[in-house]
């Protein structure tokens, strides 16, 4: 692939100033290298390699939250025993990304900044109420993204990467010269249970068509609180608060699940003109959500439930 230059940034300040001059930040490169090759969009851009900046690799716990450096690789995080124990939903989502080779290079910060609607990690971070710490500020993840209707339109997200050379400037609120340092993920409440499910064309390593992340607590068989996010459906990542409100205080019986499905269908209808494969996704997403909630209530995984 062609690029206009390659800078191994020694510090965040170096990287930030290179980005302010129009450089493209590269960490693992698992998306950039694909885009650059298939569409030759970096021929006049400097690639700014941030993977050598030490502070982007730190993981630590502070004030009830875990802070994860943006350049941590997914396999490194998945192998972190403390993280597996403290943030099992996030680890579950990360293990669904690509194959071993991809996870060995891909970084958590890159996944968030790339802002692919089919990201497996973003829905998990959304329901965990994560924040993005940049070189300038801390932004709740829910406010980090901007609508990107283009993503939903091209080839139903079966292509592997987005159309924009610099996804960060098109799909996030990052300013030129602003870099993501870390993600701050609050620890879930004690007794929380979670579920992650990825619906893809095969059980191999493809992108998600639709995915689902849930985390919440039950009290005496009744939903005390439940946060839901689904990828692959909306022009920007969101939590399905309407569905959560329907579920709160119920035991998620069949009639409640019907109302949850209706709430999602209504929210999805707003995307009917924007979402490729709407006919398929508008049918499969509510069913997947209801199945997921039923599995969540039973303390099951959806993989096991669907195999039966």
């Amino acid at each position: 692939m062609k690029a206009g230059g390659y800078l191994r940034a020694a510090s965040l300040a170096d990287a930030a100033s290179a980005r302010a001059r129009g450089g493209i930040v590269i960490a693992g490169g698992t998306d950039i290298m694909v885009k650059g090759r298939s569409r030759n969009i970096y021929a006049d851009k400097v690639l700014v390699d941030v993977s050598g900046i030490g502070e982007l690799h730190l993981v630590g716990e502070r004030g009830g939250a875990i802070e994860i450096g943006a350049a941590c690789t997914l396999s490194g995080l998945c192998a972190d025993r403390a993280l597996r124990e403290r943030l099992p939903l996030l680890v579950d989502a990360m293990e669904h990304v690509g194959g071993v080779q991809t996870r060995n290079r891909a970084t958590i910060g890159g996944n968030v900044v790339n802002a692919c609607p089919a990201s497996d990690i973003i829905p998990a971070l959304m329901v965990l109420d994560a924040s993005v710490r940049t070189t300038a500020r801390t932004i709740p993840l829910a406010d980090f993204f901007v609508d990107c209707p283009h993503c939903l339109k091209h080839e139903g997200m079966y292509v592997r990467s987005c159309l924009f050379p610099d996804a960060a400037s098109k799909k996030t609120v990052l300013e030129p010269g602003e870099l993501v340092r870390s993600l701050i993920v609050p620890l879930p409440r004690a007794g929380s249970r979670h579920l992650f499910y990825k619906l893809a064309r095969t059980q191999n390593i493809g992108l998600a068509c639709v995915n689902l992340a849930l985390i919440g607590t039950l009290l005496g068989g009744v939903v005390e609180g439940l946060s839901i996010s689904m990828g692959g459906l909306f022009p920007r990542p969101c939590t399905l608060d309407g569905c959560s409100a329907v579920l709160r205080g119920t035991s998620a019986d069949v009639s409640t699940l019907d109302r949850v499905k209706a709430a999602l269908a209504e929210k999805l209808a707003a995307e009917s003109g924007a979402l490729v494969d709407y006919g398929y996704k508008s049918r499969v997403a509510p069913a997947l959500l209801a199945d997921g909630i039923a599995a969540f209530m039973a303390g099951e995984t959806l993989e096991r439930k669907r195999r039966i």
Partner: protein
Amino acid sequence: MIEVSFSVNGAAHTLRVGPGERLIDVLRGRLGLTGTKEGCGIGVCGACTVLVDGRAENACLVPAASLEGASVVTVEGLSTDGLDPLQQAFLDHHAIQCGFCTPGLVMSARALLDENPEPTEEEIRTAIRGNLCRCTGYEQAIAAIASVAGTGARALLDEQAGLIRSSARLEAGVPFARTPPTSTPAPEGGDAR
């Protein structure tokens, strides 16, 4: 051009590489190491899997300029002194047909066993999930890897051995006994033709 120093199969190299030049092009085009194959070129098929600092990575997605100080091992690096046990196991288990995916599969397996010498069958499957094979159906490759691995995957091997025994019977023309031979006596004096 960017100067970068790294080792490939133990040999040190200092090269001037283009800013977007991929590791696979350096390996195949500049160093003549054509054992690493390029399949999809977009990080899906795993044919170009090599070890970078001991981890399996797709050489088609690695910018060569990012490799300063890194240690790269390709499939050629496994067989400096005879075949690697994994390579021999792939031969023994006939885990090869066209062979295009084989270097990648072997390197993924090598990375797995270096880190976890006694993987379970599920761990083997996870380790090679990023390697597409259009010929074998994976079972022989999994058996080959399990045969080199420790005890964790033994149960699978026994099962595989059962299958091989069955197919040997078929080739030898030995029919499977479906019904006990005494239960269906021929009709007396009859010619059912």
